[in-house]
């Protein structure tokens, strides 16, 4: 039986937490932004960048993630290359991105977008369960309360991008059987 004191306590708990509700950023998105920056830091692109040219990350899907990514990465630099973030409406016309991030979105046809020739030399990062199977290179997810990622070795090889083992040792490397359907 709930006593009066217990009921009073429960009300207090409720009042306390209700008073505290306030909108804010997604913490998971901030961690994802930091992981994206890590891939820029530990990646090597065959495509030659102009001296002091920008490293560009394109974002498809959730506009709020593009905001978080811009907030976290704009102003940063990697090996003397400044980092820029652009929102993409489609990948077909993209010319400048070294990384394209597929922020999960209901309306996004990820598989079709990944087959676009414009992404052949781009590091594709996603956050959906079938991202590697759709042809993506890196998939971010949360495992046991921590950020984790899985990498398609074949997709990386196709794109000619080399990721340092110092970063890859934190992820799961998927083979052709699990990662790609090519």
């Amino acid at each position, binding site marked *: *039986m*709930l*006593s009066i*004191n*217990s009921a*009073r*306590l*429960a009300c*207090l*708990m409720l*009042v*306390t*937490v209700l*008073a*505290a*509700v*306030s*909108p*804010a*950023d*997604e*913490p*998971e998105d*901030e*961690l994802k*932004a*930091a*992981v994206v*920056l*890590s891939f820029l830091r*530990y990646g090597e692109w065959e495509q030659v960048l102009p001296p002091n040219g920008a490293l560009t990350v394109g974002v498809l899907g959730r506009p709020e993630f593009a905001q978080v990514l811009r907030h*976290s*990465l704009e102003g*940063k630099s990697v090996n003397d290359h400044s980092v820029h973030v652009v929102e993409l409406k489609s990948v077909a016309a993209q010319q400048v991105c070294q990384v394209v991030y597929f922020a999960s979105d209901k309306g996004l046809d990820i598989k079709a977008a990944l087959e676009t020739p414009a992404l052949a030399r781009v590091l594709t990062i996603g956050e*959906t*369960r*079938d991202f590697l*199977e759709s042809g993506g290179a890196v998939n971010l*997810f*949360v*495992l*046991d*309360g*921590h*950020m*984790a990622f899985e990498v398609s070795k074949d997709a990386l090889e196709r794109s000619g991008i080399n990721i340092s083992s*110092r*970063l890859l*040792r*934190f992820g*799961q*490397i*998927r*083979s052709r*059987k*699990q990662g790609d359907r090519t």
Partner: protein
Amino acid sequence: MDTRLLITLALGSAGIVSAQRVGTPTDDLTNLSVDDLFQLEVTSVGRKAQELSKAPAAIYVLTAEDILRSGATSIPEALEGVPGLSVERVDGRMWSISARGFARLFSDKILVMIDGRSLYTPLFSGVLWDMIDVPLENIERIEIVRGPGAVMWGPNAVNGVINIITKKARDTRGTLVSVGAGNDVYGSVLARWAAAPTERLAYQVWTKLEDENPADSSKGSYAQIPGVTYTNPAPITDLNTESARLGFRVDDQVSDKDTVSVEGDVFKLGREDALGYPQVIRQSMDFVTADTSGTGGFVEARWTHTNSAGNESSLQFTFDKNQIDYPFVGGESDNLTIDFQKRLQTSDRNEVYWGFGYQHYSDSTYSNGVIGFQPAAGMYCLGDAVLRDEFQLIPNRLLASAGMRVDYTSYSRFDYQPSIRLLYTPSARQSLWAAVSRAVRVPSRVDRDLAADEGDLMIGLLPIRELLWGSDSMRPEVENSLELGYRFQSGQRWSADFATFWSYYTSLAAVAMPQHLQVQTVDGMPEFLMNLVAVNAATARSYGGEASATWQLTPVWRLRPSYSYLDEAPRLPPNHMWMLDTSGYRHQGAIRSQYDLSRHLQLDLTARAQSRNTVWDLPGAVLFDARLGWRPARDTEFSFSMQDLTGREIVETYAQSPFVSIPTRRTFLVRWVQRF
């Protein structure tokens, strides 16, 4: 009730609240090293639920953050409020923990593992919770699986599995010192040091010293049979327990494909007990105090070989040795296990798991005559083989899993435990699963070799001495179970999990009452003996369900409500009684609130409710816990936690043995954690 503290907390938190985020005190996550980045706890839970959606079983996970933010000081306290799990306090050191019913001090239908090492002892088919302690700071997560899990997890996982997974040495690099003090845990010190000299090698050593006393002028009570309880004539003031532990772990990636982990610990424990020995049941009991001691340790080695992502082998060896001396029974035990498992992806749609294991257990016991074993020394061997196949009937939509475990034991010869599971995932956000399983609980030394003196039972004016005996003819207890579950995840905001089950048990252990009394003479006087002998005579039916959800209301506030329903119907034939009565609460509910007042300040509140315990006639109750954590710097944390805020004094269960039960009480703990 002291609500002033809560009012202060409430007012304080309301004043501090602003638009702040959950997370670490680090201002800019992009400045973190990759090592630190992947160690950070992610507070958004929806995605974790998505990962769980791949499991065709009822699983609940306590993360390291959940455990530390619960304010728990031991593993059983951390497990309180987990859906489907009965966690009942006996005296604050001993616990009755079980899943989906059959809860008692020596719960025998749940498998408990730490890093794949089973804590389930063939001595009595259960877990000595009072002898186990894993520093909570070392735990990566605890997975709680309800329902039969033998094929996936190991033998004797009849009603569930508690799988405790500790952190890898690499994930604990640096030095950690944790110091706590309060009115239950008087003093607790953990010191841990870990280093990773190369990218492949990491090692960790730790030591923990603890002094606790869960009693404080507490009312002590005992019950041998339902309806007959005794109260200790004096308040219980001294249940003091002192323990020391020393542990280590080494993880070495010896090649690109091979990883070796070795871990172990040694412990020494001494404590005071308040005991009640029944003399004449319903009329008199002897109340005494005595000492309990325990020493022991274990070593575990695990080798994992990964040929490719879909081709992995692991070989595990464990050995543990314990000397445990309760006031009325004691002994030493050696337990050795070897286990090999292989996972092979044979095609895009099919994975095969197979393995085999061997266990060799031996013990040597002694007794003061109240509870003992005949013969005093025993040996038990178990060999097992398991085969399981997972096939994608419809790729990424419908998964079928079928498996079988076969055990060969010294006590029961061949036992088989099959399981068939289906998992349907119409979308990444939803999954529906169903399972049909048969599970067995193999007989233990208690079933076969028990010799217990229950005291004199008065029948009219005639005292009859009640003796309880095991039997070599005991067979495994068998469970057949149907399960159905559904999970739903809505973005990163909330997820929900529902499971329901129906189980039927046969060949349950009970004791048969004799048709005739035995008469013997003692000092020329006749004495009547009632010999109760163990038999597999009882059956039971149980059904119920569990619902749990995780709701990230805002990035700084997470709620985890849960509710469990259990309907148990044990059936005894005439002239039989239970060896030990079991009890589970019909209704259980809990809600955990984790709230980040700021980057540096956390407020965590838990409410736990359980309905009346009908077996022991114990009242239902709602208990509240709270914790306030302050992280002034990234490496420093202070916390103040209180259990049973309202100070409700509730006896949660009886030990049905000479051990005393004491009620819950308001306790507090101040803790300082410093990393270097």
